[in-house]
């Protein structure tokens, strides 16, 4: 799709997000935004987490998933909508987004009585389309992926005189997102570090601008996932470059090219960029569900994932705020995340073992497993692929244990009693490494 950038086509040109002319936002933009949006946005709590004791630092969670549409994008959307000129408000706005940005725009445009159109590719999940429609937006399905949808949206913008609003790079959007930083400083005045999820970079740019102006000693860390390292690549190439995105748990962060304005604003004032493995994301979601009782989407849990993966040892005994940016996770995916998280923590163990097919063979196996306190979740038998012995059956068992030591106990038990056995995840352990290695097939 590089052909789109070869000729400076007028359709793709968004005056607010121009590659040749990136804009930087200032603190005044953010504080003005805070005042402007305060009537329509919930001031979300920033609560101390129960996990602080485990990780040796004071962890605070900024619960921005409690906004009405479930993500922090509402702040930027409302700010941008309120800053439109009266003619633009009458004509309406348009946006191309798969997720939180379109919902936020639909909700607030409806409240402010501005006509809103959203363009989504045909791979969009039905729930998201329905949600936007229920907020009163005009949803158009076009294109096979986000690039085509975006092109179509910009075309419609030129045709119908609508204002195109980019979900992470528009300066008004970034200023709105920055209000999170202002609230954090109000609620936790002596914060030492803030972990900000990075997708297109809008939140990072806004929060960094806000906080660094008021208190330059606070460390701002951007956190992104391994499967979509748009900012890392942008830093390496001194400018945003398109990255091939693979399917990721953090779909809210899956943006191929980082925002130009965001990159310019954030690159000088950000302290460190951390890249997190997807396994830790699943574990972070699990931890947030179990301990804090919050349902957070992949993109929102990256900060907690970074802490859990041990990627910020220098923050021990400091006050750290993680921004939980959104909660819009599909419940099926939530179920799978919980299972993945349990498997990654070795509390869900899968193994295969060959037992005798005579009566009592499997009963014996179950009795042995139960005797050490392991709970069996699922058990399947397979007869056809057992080599050599007609009277044996291969049994696949999925069971729940207390933790890695308990798993070792189980493994010792099985290895002592049976000749043929195989624990899934044996070879994975060697490959599990803390990030900073690009493009791997670990997950």
């Amino acid at each position, binding site marked *: 799709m590089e052909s789109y950038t070869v000729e400076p086509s007028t359709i793709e040109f968004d005056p607010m997000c121009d590659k040749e002319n990136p804009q930087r936002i200032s603190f005044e933009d953010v504080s003005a935004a805070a005042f402007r949006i305060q009537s329509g946005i919930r001031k979300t709590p920033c609560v101390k987490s129960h996990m602080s004791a485990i990780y040796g630092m004071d962890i605070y969670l900024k619960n921005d998933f409690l906004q009405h549409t479930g993500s922090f994008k509402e702040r930027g959307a409302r700010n941008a909508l309120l800053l439109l000129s009266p003619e633009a408000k009458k004509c309406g706005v348009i946006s191309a987004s798969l997720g939180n940005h379109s919902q936020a725009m639909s909700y607030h445009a409806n409240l402010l009585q501005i006509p809103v159109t959203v363009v989504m590719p045909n791979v969009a999940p039905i729930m998201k389309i329905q949600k936007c429609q229920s907020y009163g937006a005009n949803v158009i399905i076009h294109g096979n992926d986000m690039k085509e949808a975006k092109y179509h949206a910009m075309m419609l913008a030129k045709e119908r005189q609508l204002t195109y609003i980019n979900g992470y790079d528009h300066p008004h959007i970034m200023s709105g997102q920055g209000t999170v930083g202002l609230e954090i400083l109000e609620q936790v005045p002596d914060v030492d570090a803030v972990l900000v999820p990075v997708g297109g970079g809008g939140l990072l740019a806004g929060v960094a601008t806000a906080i660094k102006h008021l208190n330059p000693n606070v460390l701002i860390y951007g956190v992104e996932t391994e499967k979509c390292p748009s900012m890392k690549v942008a830093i390496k190439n001194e400018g945003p470059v398109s990255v091939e995105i693979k399917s990721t748990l953090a779909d809210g962060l899956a943006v191929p090219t980082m925002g130009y304005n965001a990159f310019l604003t954030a690159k000088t004032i950000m302290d460190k960029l951390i890249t997190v493995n997807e396994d830790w994301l699943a574990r972070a979601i699990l931890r947030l569900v179990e301990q804090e*009782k919050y349902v957070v989407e992949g993109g929102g849990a990256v900060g907690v994932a970074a802490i859990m993966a041990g990627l910020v040892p220098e923050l021990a005994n400091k006050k750290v705020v993680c921004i939980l940016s959104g909660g819009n996770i599909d419940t099926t995916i939530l*179920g799978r995340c919980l299972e993945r998280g349990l498997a990654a923590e070795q509390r869900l163990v899968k193994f295969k073992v060959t037992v005798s097919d005579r009566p009592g063979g499997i009963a014996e196996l179950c009795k042995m497993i139960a005797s050490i306190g392991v709970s069996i979740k699922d058990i399947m038998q397979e007869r056809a692929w057992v080599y050599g012995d007609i009277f044996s059956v291969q049994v696949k068992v999925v069971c729940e244990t207390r933790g890695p030591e308990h798993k070792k106990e189980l493994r010792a038990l099985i290895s002592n009693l049976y000749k043929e056995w195989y624990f899934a995840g044996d070879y994975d352990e060697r490959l599990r490494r803390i990030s900073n290695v690009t493009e791997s097939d670990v997950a």
Partner: protein
Amino acid sequence: MQKPTNTVQLHLETTPSLGIAPGALVNRDSAKRNIWCPKPEIEFDSWCNPNNPKLITYKEISKAMNVLREHFPVTPLLRSRCCVQFGLEVNYKLEIFHRTGSFNERGALYTLLMLKENQRKFGVITASTGSWAMALAYYGHKLDIPVTTVLPLYTLINVVEMCKGYGATVILNGKSLAEAKNQAFIVRAESGATYLNSYDHPYAIAAAGSIGVEIMEQLPQTDAILIPVGGGGLLAGISTAVKHIKPEVLIYGIEPEKCCGFYKAMKNEHPYHIIAGRSIAGSLAISTPGHNAFHTAKPSINKMVLVNDDWISRAVLHLTEEERFVADGAGATSLSALFGLPNILPELRGKTVVCVISGGNIDTDTLPRCIERAKAVEGRIIKMTVTLPADETTEQLKIFSTIANLGCNVRQYYTEHAWLTENDFYTIYLTLTCETRDIKHACTLKRVMERLFPNMCHFLEEPFSPIPICSCFAKKLP
């Protein structure tokens, strides 16, 4: 075991099946037999005496409130994002953010703080399914009081680990809560610890009442409060507190129909022993409601509502999907009554209602299953079986592509050959589980499939012909 202070006590412990001599009974009214349960009482708890029920007053509740204020911040009361969907102003009082995840922490802390010095030395013992045990273990650890918890055998692993992690002695015994409780009393007889009943101890009820006071402070315009009921402690506390502050507020107790002990008690004017079924709201499976709780709550309750497990699953799904909170079955019971609208509770339309979400300790294995069950009930997951001639791969392809074109997602499928009718060697059954958007979409899918593959499809009927809810499900009390 051999420390007889008086011979009658020893008699009680060594030969339980013979009962107490009538002469001794006359002298000790405190150990009368429970007429519903003819075994003699080893389970004598002076705090929860059936013959001497303690009524909790507002004074005790405000005392508990003052003590707890120093330790707990006020828990959030949030307005729901889906008020339009329900047709009333729904608010949630969230008790899920405590360290051990349930409102039991209030009762645990208050009770432990109010123990006398000699009681602290001997420690406390309790039987519980989970939340209460964890709360006691946590505060016992903080206040340096030895805690013993007796848990039934089916308790979840992480509950056991958490109790052990806080230094409590954990005993796993009993197939049900009642058996665990019995074992707890046997252990207590030896160790001299104090038995703490989670739903009936007067201090626990008073501490639960502080939730009611907070609700009235945070939302003075409340019209009705929905409260999950198991043993009745939460109901008793909140109803006493609220009726004292503002008697016009309606108090509804919501109970799972599988373990409706409190409802039966209200009908019979006396705590009634039932066999509690296994419900998704595990913590509410109490066979006999508390005596103190029952007598305290009786004059204050406006209505008892029975809900079935499917609604509870739907409530858990709703909280996870729409509000982004994790509540367990017991905690979501209060919201589940609203899923029976408009057939039950029509008088709540347009009113301001507070649902008390009492806890969030749901197992990470149960949560996905609960979500799936709820989706099946709502028609978002449907199951169908198609009869196909064997080896016709084009038919299978047609089926899958039809489903895909309708926008449905196939979650699981398997084929079966063996259990067929006679002489029918060449047919296979293809069973599919599909995900749809909602019940209307499911009906569309059903119509299309039956049109395209006539007489070959069989749909699991449950979402398409749900059992109608009768309005007598909610029982009004005189």
